[in-house]
């Protein structure tokens, strides 16, 4: 009833082929939603939201003085990915992470890719995420990016693209797990009818990934999650993951370097720490190596790391592969390191530091999206078609001043998914961030965080910009 008049419009829709025609894998869900009144749906939406508040699945908003916690807006109509699509995505993501990891090893090692002329040296050294102190380091088992969140989008024709890679401290995995928990109580019947792949083993896989980094001779290695503290926007996630893994959640002040090891302060004295899943940025990790003003990190931890006496995940320095300019080179990396063609394509990207590209970008600012190379969270962006002439001129100046810092991409028409907006169901733009773990093998959690732009017509899905989330159902082939 509600979804019968749902209009997918001139977009790729995640649940509908066209008006009145659900995608086959979405059929049981659409039928279920149609059997409910809009009031019932709204009620379920409310109780889902309430459940998340009770669970404390909140994030902190820096600018929001009054009560710094909010529940991430959550939409109860899930997004569905077919098993067929998923199998392809999974292969593509594994390939990508493999290549990125090879790149990181190479770039902090022999730098063959630079010597062979595929990536200009300047680009590497001018990247904010590139850390000179990490040159020559070899993390355990040669793995740098243990946890990655890769942002995927679909264009109008349904084609998937990688929008960006997040290799520093990608957030959101906890929402995947909590959203699923809430959805199971919201649509229990549908779960019985559809072969939805479970996401719950993420924490177990994460723990295995981290344990894999511990020195092999230790019987019972101590793993911790390092958080900047309760006021960090992702604190809920830090504590949730620590809890799900059954490991300590520590702050910088709980740790100290003593006797050449990283140790934590316990009620019974100091205790050695072997693996740190750190959720603070490289810059803040060690005031003696990086930012001297950091109060969040642990003085001397890098020296302990250098000696192989503690493992850090992700390894410091992975941020260089996060750089949006470096991103443009991933297809080349895949070819170079793996001898394969990239499976999931990049969005076509113009590099403003290349004169030809820059000229094109400046001439087409009204059609392109311009992004700062080192920003995240939807900051430092110009969405050309929606911008004012002044905003475009402002960006043009910035690009001319520091071309290295900007890339531009054509505006994609992100796919949409039916979303409950007030007392109506409307199509809203979505993206998808699956979580990939690199331990003994590469593991991709089946699903990921679907972020949805809740402002009507908006393309920006970031939680810091008013976005919400949906549960992502990967429907296996039954």
């Amino acid at each position, binding site marked *: 009833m509600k979804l019968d008049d749902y209009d997918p419009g001139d977009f790729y829709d995640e649940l509908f082929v066209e008006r009145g025609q659900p995608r086959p894998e979405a059929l049981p869900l659409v039928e279920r939603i149609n059997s409910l009144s809009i009031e019932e749906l709204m009620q379920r939406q409310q109780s889902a939201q309430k459940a998340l508040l*009770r669970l404390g699945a909140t994030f902190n908003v820096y600018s929001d003085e009054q009560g710094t916690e909010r529940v991430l807006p959550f939409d109860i109509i899930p997004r569905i990915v077919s098993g067929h699509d998923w199998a392809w995505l999974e292969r593509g993501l594994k390939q990508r992470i493999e290549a990125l990891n090879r790149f990181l090893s190479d770039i902090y090692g022999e730098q063959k890719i630079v010597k062979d002329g595929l990536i200009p040296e300047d680009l590497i050294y001018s990247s904010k995420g590139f850390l000179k102190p990490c040159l020559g380091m070899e993390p355990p088992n040669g793995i740098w990016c243990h946890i990655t969140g890769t942002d995927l989008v679909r264009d109008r024709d349904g084609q998937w693209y990688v929008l960006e890679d997040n290799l520093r401290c990608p957030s959101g995995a906890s929402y995947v797990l909590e959203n699923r928990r809430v959805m199971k109580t919201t649509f229990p019947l549908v779960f019985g009818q559809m072969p939805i792949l479970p996401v719950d083993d993420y924490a177990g896989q994460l723990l295995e990934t981290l344990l894999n980094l511990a020195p092999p001779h230790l019987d019972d290695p101590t793993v911790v999650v390092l958080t900047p503290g309760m006021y960090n926007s992702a604190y809920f996630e830090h504590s*949730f993951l620590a*809890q799900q893994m059954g490991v300590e*959640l*520590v702050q910088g002040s709980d740790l*100290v370097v003593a006797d050449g090891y990283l140790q934590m*302060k*316990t*009620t019974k004295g*100091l205790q050695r720490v072997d693996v740190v899943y750190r959720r603070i940025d490289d810059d803040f990790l060690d005031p003696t190596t990086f930012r001297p003003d950091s109060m969040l990190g642990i003085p001397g931890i890098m020296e302990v790391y250098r000696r192989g006496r503690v493992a850090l995940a992700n390894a410091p320095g992975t941020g260089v592969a996060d750089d949006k300019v470096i991103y443009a080179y991933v297809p080349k990396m895949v070819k170079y390191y793996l001898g394969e063609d990239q499976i999931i394509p990049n969005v076509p990207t113009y590099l403003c530091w290349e004169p030809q590209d820059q000229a094109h970008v400046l001439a087409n600012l009204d059609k392109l999206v311009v992004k700062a190379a080192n920003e995240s969270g939807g900051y430092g962006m110009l969405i050309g078609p929606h911008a004012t002439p002044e905003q475009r001129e402002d960006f043009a100046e910035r690009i001319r001043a520091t071309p290295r810092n900007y890339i531009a991409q054509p505006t994609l028409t992100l796919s949409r998914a039916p979303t409950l907006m007030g007392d109506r169901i409307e199509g809203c733009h979505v993206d998808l961030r699956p979580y990939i773990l690199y331990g003994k093998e590469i593991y991709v959690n089946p699903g990921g965080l679907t972020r949805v732009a809740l402002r009507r017509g908006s393309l920006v899905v970031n939680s810091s910009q008013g976005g919400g989330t949906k549960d992502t159902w990967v429907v296996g082939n039954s």
Partner: protein
Amino acid sequence: MLSRVADSIYWLNRYIERAENVARFVDVNLNLLLDSPVGVAQQWEPLVLTTGDLTLFKENYGAATADNVIRFLTFDAKYPNSILSCLQMARENARSVRESISSEMWEQVNDFYLMVKDACQRPDDLDLSDFFSQVKMSSHLFAGVMNATMSHNEGWHFGRIGRMIERADKTARILDVKYFILLPSVKDVGTPLDELQWIALLKSASGYEMYRKRQHRITPQDVVNFLVLDREFPRSIQFCLLEAERSLHQITGSSRGVWRNPAERALGKLRSELDYITVEEITQRGLHEFLDDLETALNDIGRKIRETFFALEVV
């Protein structure tokens, strides 16, 4: 376990117990007033006095009217020991150690906090008595959830020590209220009015029925004996000390009667003093003086627990 985590679980429990006791104080006074003969002045100041924060109260509120005192002790976000503040801090502590406590405990603290916060936003249309009993029950619920869902590990023992020390302190302060509540004249000692106040006092410690089973008659000495020295009643000071001591020795692994750190020594010393003291000796020393010393000793134990377990300084 991490010192910071132990510290937070300890305070999480103290704050919840503190909120519960504030609710007890206020509620019993409300009831007492309803029973007092006409003409007996309302006495709200003693309540503030027992918190030790009378000066702060006077600065911000002036006269100790029922409204002022209730607002101060219950809803004042700036007063760190109000029910609202206690819940805020309990929740902050719980939030900082969510990974170490059960999710049921977190949900209970969070619910409790949301309930109090909601009440504070509409104090005027609040049924106070109902609210205070909700606070008490929520605190019990928290303790129950903690007992039933958290492993009785080190963290749990620190939590119990926190709760027991806070409770011992508050029972001492409840008893002390009687010292400050003035009878209209000396002749009223031993009259129904006096007895009424002792009954109120027992009730604020939820001890009225249990007391009756044990002593039948209400006499000041027996009430003091019951609330200070009874070894079976869960809100008596000696009971709390015994429980706290048991947990402390579970943590350290040393047996009771010996000590390896200042916290064990201070707690063991106070507990054994109560083992052998009689109510007559307490009366001789003066109840108020005795309670005052006891509160000081409890503060000292709290400090030593912090120094021994929470404040590890690494040079």
